[in-house]
């Protein structure tokens, strides 16, 4: 048993745990600088920027959770349920930055909506993007996070064993006089929420720390704290870099406090909700209509944004108030395909890291006691909660010492670190929630443990496994900061090309790269959705 435990933890430790820990230590060491902290607290934008970051993070998390719950409640046990996964996966595949660019062109004062609704020769003086409260940023975050939460929620509820279980419980509730809404609220939702806990943490951390999206849609005076930090870290002066690092730690601390507070809130809310959950049957029906409107809205907006990106990618110039670009051309796409190497590098990395991460996760889950999962999940969440520049910086320091800078190994680890974290978080709930009576039954039929896992557990957990792999693939496809540091100019990936070109502001080229970044994950997500369907439905 002991040997098995150690052996099972080995791949994860070597490929992920050790490099991550070393990177964190190095990152933290670099972040200890009294002068930098003093300078940070003298920064006039620190507090307003922090509030803005927390506000965007909380609002985006709350709204996306609310919408997700309504959509899932409305569609649960309907014919549309299985169409949900591929649809949401499609929305998930579009990178955040790509979505932000298309969304900005939709809602900006000089954007398509204003052209249709207002017209005239001059754009209206709207504050629809870069508004001082960060509302445009929140809206774009919510629209992108709903698909993520839908996919994770869907795969939790559609898992072979759980689906059958919940189905039975809902039938029982119906026979006791519960309406569909009542059954959802009292049976399905509490179980769902426990699965969504970690994904929600990711949503919150991402929403509070995002840089690229905030640059396109967020306010500037003050900007969100992540942009203040980002500016500092991008400076050539070491002192300013150190202030940025101090800022990154400060931000991580603030986020940690928020998460701790939300943990307390959860316990408190659960107590408040208990009477409601245990109340007798009610006829409340599922919010099908609201769900349809919300779901339809998200699909529609994502579709419009994607179409807009496609049009933008072939229009070098599209001035207000034209409804259609005056000239079109394929120059942007030609320049993308003129250098295909970064695309291949990205695809190869994404496929390898996703597959390896899922394998390593399975080995971990199958060899470790569930109580030990915190040694995986806490660092995983921590690694995602810390601004990428800190991890990337520490990792780079490590690679420099080990001579891994500019090597395929370095590049692999730089991609693998976040991919592994996401895969572990997405997979932990479904895997640990698996009803072990199936395995007990199999054991009783005197089958070998390995055979049981391969023949029973894996097929039943097919949906979450494929989802996790697809999420890993998608995460790898958009890695930028640590990857770029590790590559040191020796390798280029698609996001590196995209980010450098974005710095020049050529919108048609950016749109083309954004779509090129979206298409591979889209295919993978759709494939995962189709292959992951329960066979017995």
């Amino acid at each position, binding site marked *: 048993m002991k040997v098995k435990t150690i052996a099972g933890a080995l791949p994860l430790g070597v490929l992920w745990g050790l490099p991550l820990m070393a990177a964190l230590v190095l990152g933290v060491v670099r972040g200890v600088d009294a002068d930098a902290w003093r300078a940070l607290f003298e920064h006039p934008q620190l507090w307003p920027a922090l509030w803005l970051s927390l506000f965007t993070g909380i609002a985006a998390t709350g709204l996306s959770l609310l919408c997700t719950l309504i959509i899932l409640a409305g569609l649960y046990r309907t014919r549309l349920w299985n169409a949900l996964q591929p649809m949401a996966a499609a929305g998930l595949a579009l990178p955040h930055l790509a979505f932000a660019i298309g969304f900005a062109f939709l809602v900006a004062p000089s954007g398509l909506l204003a052209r249709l609704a207002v017209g005239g020769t001059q*754009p209206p003086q709207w504050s629809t993007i870069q508004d001082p409260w960060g509302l445009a940023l929140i809206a774009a975050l919510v629209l992108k996070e709903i698909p993520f939460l839908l996919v994770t929620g869907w795969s939790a509820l559609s898992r072979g064993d759980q689906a059958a279980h919940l189905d039975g419980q809902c039938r029982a509730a119906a026979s006791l006089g519960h309406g569909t809404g009542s059954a959802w609220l009292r049976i399905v939702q509490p179980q769902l929420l426990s699965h969504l806990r970690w994904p929600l943490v990711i949503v919150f951390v991402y929403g509070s720390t995002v840089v690229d999206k905030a640059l396109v849609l967020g306010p*500037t005076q003050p900007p969100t704290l992540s942009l203040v930090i980002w500016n500092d870290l991008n400076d050539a002066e070491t002192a300013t870099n150190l202030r940025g690092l101090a800022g990154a730690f400060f931000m991580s601390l603030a986020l940690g406090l928020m998460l701790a507070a939300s943990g307390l809130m959860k316990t408190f809310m659960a107590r408040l909700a208990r009477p409601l959950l245990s109340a007798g049957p009610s006829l409340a029906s599922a919010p099908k209509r609201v769900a349809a409107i919300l779901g339809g809205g998200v699909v529609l907006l994502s579709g419009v944004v994607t179409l807009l990106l496609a049009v933008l990618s072939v229009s070098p110039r599209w001035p207000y108030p034209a409804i259609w670009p005056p000239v079109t051309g394929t120059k942007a796409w030609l320049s993308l395909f003129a250098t295909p190497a970064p695309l291949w590098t990205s695809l190869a990395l994404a496929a390898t890291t996703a597959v390896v991460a899922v394998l390593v996760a399975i080995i971990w889950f199958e060899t470790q006691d569930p109580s030990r999962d915190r040694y995986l999940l806490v660092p995983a969440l921590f690694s995602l909660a810390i601004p990428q520049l800190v991890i990337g910086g520490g990792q780079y320091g490590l690679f420099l010492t080990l001579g891994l800078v500019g090597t395929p190994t370095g590049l692999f680890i730089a991609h693998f670190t976040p991919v592994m974290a996401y895969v572990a978080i997405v997979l932990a709930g479904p895997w640990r929630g698996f009803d072990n009576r199936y395995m007990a039954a199999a054991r009783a039929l005197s089958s070998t443990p390995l055979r049981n896992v391969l023949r029973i557990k894996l097929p039943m957990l097919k949906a979450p496994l494929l989802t996790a792999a697809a999420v890993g693939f998608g995460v790898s496809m958009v890695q930028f900061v640590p990857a770029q540091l590790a590559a040191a100019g020796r390798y280029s990936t698609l996001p590196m090309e995209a980010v450098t070109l974005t710095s020049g502001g050529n919108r048609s*080229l950016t749109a083309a790269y954004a779509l090129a970044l979206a298409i591979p994950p889209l295919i993978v997500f759709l494939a995962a959705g189709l292959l992951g369907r329960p066979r017995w439905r």
Partner: protein
Amino acid sequence: MTPKLSRRGFTGLAASLPFIGMAKADEGWSAIEKEASGQTVYFNAWAGSPQINDYIFWAGLELKAQHGITLEHVKLSDTAEAVRRVRDEVTAGKADGSADLIWINGENFRTMKRERLLFGPFAEDLPNFALVDVDGKPTTRVDFAEATEGLESPWGMAQLTFFGDFANVEEPPLSMMELLERARVNPGTITYPAPPDFHGTTFLKQVLAETMTDRSMLAVSVTKEEFVEASAPLFGFLDKLHEHLWREGKQFPPTQAQMTQMLADNELLLSLTFNPNEPANLVANGMLPQSTIAWQHDIGTIGNTHFLAIPINARAKAAAQVTANFLLSPKAQGRKANLKIWGDPTVLDLDKLTPADQALFDTTSTPGALLDPAPTIPEPHGSWVPLIEAAWLERYGA
């Protein structure tokens, strides 16, 4: 002129006929060329523009054919990335660095020079340096008030330039006062990028230069106390300007690129750039309309030079020098200055070139070209920049 030219011609020959006796400098150079052959130069250069990337790709083909050098463009979104990388490598004792040549100027150069991260001096020993217009373009040897001391080789010229659509700005504002007037007449259509964006900071320097009483102060180091007094007119002007700006001066676009996009979308009247030929290039590439015009302020605008530097831990120092020299050649500079290719103004003195080399520079004007160049105002001393940025942030940052 003649000796310089013959030396250039001679070095060309020297590569193929190594036995002929030669001056010591030439001997040194041909040794460098010989060593360079077969090396790979990792050229770290900002890559936000496909035109620039295409130009660097072309240079790579030429270098391969002429010198057997492989040029790899390491695409940066911010040059400070390369500065930090070299610093980290040197700190870690890594002698075989990842960068061989960096496109650089200003704060990044000052930092690398101060921290002794640069190889050299090499720049003024490059054979083609003799063609540089060091007298007419003094910024080719002084980078943001910092002497280059041969640690970087001039590559191209830059000067703050404004541009917009003639249909909307028939009479472009030729001073900050006229810009304020224009903002009053067309509220919400004028803005500038938020500092510390490079262009935003430059806009503030321009306001400073136009509003301060004694402009000679800009050339020297400034104390905090002196700055408060000298910058009073700058902030007095901004206080008046901001209420008429886009979003009433409460929000600013984060980058110049975004501002140019907003101009292209008709959301703004004008944008600004450091490359006087960028507007013409954007017209040629279809991003801006044919009716685009470019202008500079009457009194002159902030101008500087951008350079190529070799990190102290570069692996291919010889090939990096040959590359820098090639990029200074009339052929490379002429192509770079072409409005349809890149449009980056040359650092060379055309009068020093042979007629055949002069013909490499296409001087025909195209739509969007700057018609009436104004004098260059040199960059203020480096000590001004952090003070301007901090004071701006304090006043308008939150």
